[in-house]
């Protein structure tokens, strides 16, 4: 799974303005599958929390029969967490500053998901 193509796609996410790290996370248990992180970013914590948040949001969406969540964006005072579900029960996760270019990050994350398809 951690092919060079995949790693290249992950690397492109981290080039987006404000992104400090991008990773692939197992949706079921929040384990890091692959990552590209700047120094100081705690990958395992980001992965676990992103997976847990995605599960909680999916519960809300499923309860309302809205279909699966396709994009998740948590905006905080000093940072941003973005999650895009990908095939093979994997999540593409990006974390960064509050000023992260979320639109561009999303596009690159979708490309990561396509590599996994």
């Amino acid at each position, binding site marked *: 799974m951690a092919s060079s193509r995949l790693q290249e796609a992950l690397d492109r996410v981290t080039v987006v303005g404000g992104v400090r790290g991008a990773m692939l996370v197992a949706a079921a248990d929040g384990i890091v599958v692959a990552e590209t992180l700047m120094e100081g970013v*705690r990958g395992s*914590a*980001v992965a676990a*929390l*992103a997976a*847990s*948040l995605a599960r*909680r*949001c999916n*519960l*809300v*969406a499923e*309860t*309302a*029969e*809205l*279909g*699966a*969540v*396709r*994009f*998740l*964006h*948590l*905006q*905080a*005072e*000093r*940072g*941003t*967490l973005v999650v895009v*579900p990908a*095939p*093979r029960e994997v999540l593409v996760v990006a*974390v960064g500053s*509050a000023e992260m270019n979320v639109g561009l990050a999303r596009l690159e994350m979708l490309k990561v998901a396509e590599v996994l*398809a």
Partner: protein
Amino acid sequence: MNDEFTTLAEEFARDPKSLVFLEIGERLRRDGRLEAAVRVALSGLERHPSLAAAHDLYARILVDIGDYDRARQIWTNILVREPRHIGALKGLGYLCFWAKDLDGALDHLELALSVDPTDQSVVQGLKMVREAVTEPVEEPSEDGPRPADRAFRGLDGAGRGLLLVDAHGRVLGGRLDAPLAGEVTEPVAAYLAGAAQEAERSARMLDLGDWRWLVAEAATANLHVSAPDADTLLLVMRDRSVPAGRLARLAERAAEAARTWLEE
């Protein structure tokens, strides 16, 4: 499931004329991979231009994309050729319901039920529409609107897409009507608190500061969650045609209205 999908894809590769594209397209649609689903559906339609099931698949994908007008046109065309096509009847039934055309929804879904009385999605859909039809029209009481309505009075979507809950998941105001599930106010309120707690925990543990809002884009609707104050959560739900920026503006206005109402 991935193995099954691979098997289907292999079957399709071996025999591009096979109808397995219908299953592949539907799986992609359910998985939210709409661009891929469109490609599969259009590819199938090229080979099977008169296959109603292929048009039906394409219409369902268009609904997920938010292009209701084209979906309606496709299903209408199917019914011209096959007046008892259950997929088209269901699709038009739901489109009518979302457009608040309850008579139209009843007509289509009752006909769908006559085609297949065992189809549970039709049974549930009809139940939802009939409940909506028989729901008494609320007359303004001497005390004014219900508290739930007062919270968001005058705001777009006040009666169907705005929900205010406390930190324990109890409803304070508003109401949520989901496109397929009907009213989901109470169950969504119950799970919303958990999602917001997780958002707060994530922001805190990752040293991102206080969380401000959370947006979740699902197959048929977008959700915006925020905290108007320390003890309440606000959920704004809109269909996918509403852009994220507009959703955020709606949420800001609703949060302001909620704060004013809570202080009354």
